């Protein structure tokens, strides 16, 4: 021991220890390789599991983002409708969401989620902050069917603001709305504003419908016609307002039976 501590065996011990270290390094490197081999599949599995969890979280968050964007959009629409109802205090409104359309492509109706339980009655006009949409055609307890002004059976008495003349607005199977019964001597111009006239008692007066875009005047016709560009986008109706304090006039008892 004394000799070894004194350095007399240093050359021999160096050879011995270096051999030991080499052997230990060889075993250690093989063990690490084996350990990696045995543990890495478990890590991949756990990583895959974690990855799938994170992907699920991302999907959930994306769904939340879409839902929130939808809510923001609905809130914006509601805010615009609220501004409209505050600006038009002569009418009482009930907001309703559009939840469906007519199953038949021949007709232009929408279904709203308010019915007789909310005070909705047949014949009540339906508007948005932009203009006239249509009127309630049928009502059940919690839903109602609204006939749009683009429906082929729709007929609205209108007033042309600039021309100072009354006319009739009819829908069509294509969804276009056309002005009819305009006297031939009336100067009709593009851009003329079309409003409800209130005649006939079906709609309140002065609701905006749209603008004249294509006047047609032919000498052999009794009346002029014109296409109207509605201010309401009927393909993107989401929330509408029902005018609940308007009572349509029922003329049917006054019409003589044949």
């Amino acid at each position: 021991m004394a000799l070894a501590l004194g350095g007399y065996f240093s050359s021999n011990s160096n050879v011995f220890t270096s051999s030991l270290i080499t052997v230990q390094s060889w075993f250690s490197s093989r063990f690490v390789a084996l350990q990696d081999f045995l543990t890495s599949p478990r890590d991949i599995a756990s990583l895959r599991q974690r990855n799938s969890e994170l992907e699920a979280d991302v999907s959930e968050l994306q769904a939340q983002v879409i839902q929130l964007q939808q809510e923001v959009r609905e809130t914006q629409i509601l805010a615009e409708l609220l501004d409209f109802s505050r600006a038009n205090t002569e009418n009482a409104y009930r907001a309703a969401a559009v939840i469906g359309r007519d199953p038949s492509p021949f007709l232009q109706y929408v279904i709203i989620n308010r019915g007789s339980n909310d005070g909705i009655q047949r014949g009540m006009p339906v508007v948005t902050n932009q203009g006239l949409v249509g009127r309630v055609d049928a009502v059940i307890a919690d839903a109602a069917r609204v006939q749009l002004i683009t429906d082929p059976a729709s007929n609205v008495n209108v007033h042309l603001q600039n021309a100072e003349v009354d006319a009739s607005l009819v829908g069509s199977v294509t969804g276009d709305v056309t002005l009819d019964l305009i006297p031939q001597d009336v100067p009709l111009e593009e851009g003329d504003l079309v409003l409800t006239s209130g005649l006939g008692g079906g709609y309140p007066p002065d609701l905006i419908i749209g603008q004249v875009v294509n006047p047609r005047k032919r000498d052999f016709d009794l009346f002029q016609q014109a296409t109207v560009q509605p201010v309401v986008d009927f393909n993107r109706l989401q929330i509408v307002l029902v005018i609940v304090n308007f009572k349509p006039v029922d003329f049917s008892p006054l019409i003589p039976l044949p």
Partner: protein
Amino acid sequence: MRNLIAIPVILLAVILQSSIVSNIAVLKGFADLPLVMLAAWALQDEVETAWHWAVAMGVLVGFVSGLSWFAPLMSYLLVVALAQLLQRRVWQAPLLAMFSITFLGTLGLSVFTLVELRFMVISLPVADVFGLLTLPGILLNMLLAIPVYAVMRDLARWVYPTLEVE
């Protein structure tokens, strides 16, 4: 009891038609999911309640729609009649029968609707109706026919389980 499956399926068909299918339009026409589902259901060998489905669907669609029950009910009855007719003749090619019934049923629905609207004193230009509503409707119904047929076949096998013949 197994016939009660008609209630949720028919309700679901009309709800989907009103809320989703009617918003997916080509030109101005869109598919008629209840009609295609009824055609697929009536073509299944095990099914004996297709007439009941036609009446229930016709009345329900008539209730939801601005049309009366006449046009949907008559066209759905036509679909079942065609299905029972073709089932015996082209039984080896059910998809061919499905396409034929879908085509003729959609045409029938358009004709019945035009007749009904004419009685309501609503005159529509036939050329516009055919070009903008009927033809796109036929195309979309044809596209729906294959997946709907597969779903209704599975539904029929689930409702009317039979021994498989190897």
